[in-house]
């Protein structure tokens, strides 16, 4: 699974996710990546793209959950991502990247590693795999 989230200089957020799914999956199996609100979500507050155990991400409506706790609990982006990864996955393993309309960028995961990279307008740039 691959994904990208962006907030542009006008504060507009967007998210995109694409995948081949799981190795040895059944024909016709649909995972979280195409499901809006699970693998991908964007609104006026944030943009989110998820990856990992699709069935766990679907059950937790993971991408929408980040936006929901920001909207209803008033959490910042980092808190929202931490909360969702720690509280919404049950035994599932997953990771996500997210941006907020005020230019923050966050990555969270509870797997052994996650291929990710991020950059901001003020010059910050990071590429990583492990915690």
């Amino acid at each position: 699974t691959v994904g990208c989230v962006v907030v542009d200089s006008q504060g507009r957020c967007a998210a995109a996710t694409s995948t081949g799914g799981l190795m040895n999956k059944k024909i016709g199996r649909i995972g979280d990546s195409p499901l809006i609100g699970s693998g991908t979500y964007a609104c006026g507050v944030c943009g989110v793209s998820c990856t990992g155990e699709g069935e766990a991400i679907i059950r937790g409506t993971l991408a929408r959950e980040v936006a929901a706790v920001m909207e209803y609990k008033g959490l910042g982006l980092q808190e929202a991502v931490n909360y969702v990864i720690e509280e919404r996955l049950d035994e599932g393993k997953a990771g996500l990247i997210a941006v907020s309309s005020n230019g923050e960028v966050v990555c969270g995961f509870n797997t052994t590693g996650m291929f990710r990279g991020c950059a901001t307008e003020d010059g910050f740039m990071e590429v990583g795999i492990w915690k």
Partner: protein
Amino acid sequence: MGGWAIAVHGGAGVDPNLPLQRQEDAKMLLTRCLDLGIHALRSNCSAIDVVELVVRELETDPLFNSGRGSALTEEGTVEMEASIMDGPKRRCGAVSGLTTVKNPISLARLVMDKSPHSYLAFSGAEKFAREQGVELECNDYFVTEENVGMLELAREANSIWLDYRVPNEKCSTSVETPLQMNGLPISVYAPE
């Protein structure tokens, strides 16, 4: 309001023994995709255009599990899916079950922009792709030798795998391993 920001990912659940060269290859691809997105943002492209542009690059490179280099089904074929969402008006597009579309994310974008729906799948999505004139490839184009090998390992381990998960000794030899999904016994999901 802050400035622009971008993040990309190539999947979670990485084999702790992934060879260093593979790790470097992955970091180089992620850096290349970030640079592509940064250049577009500096040229004032919109967020929705930049996420599509970057995911297309990730789909075209066979390194990660999407587009070319996608994971294989139990029959050794590729079935791809993707979705895209534009925050300001919460417009969205999604596709599933694609077998010939070179860049699934661009078809998802066309579903969002050029169709009255938000999700098209399997033969309907392939028909829409032909109507929209997107680039098509035969299914073999998406299959890589490495993934054929990984599928064999998954079959031997009688399990279903996330990206980059290679069986450890015990599960590849113990034939009584119950069917696994993402490395967990299928019973974890059975209630659903």
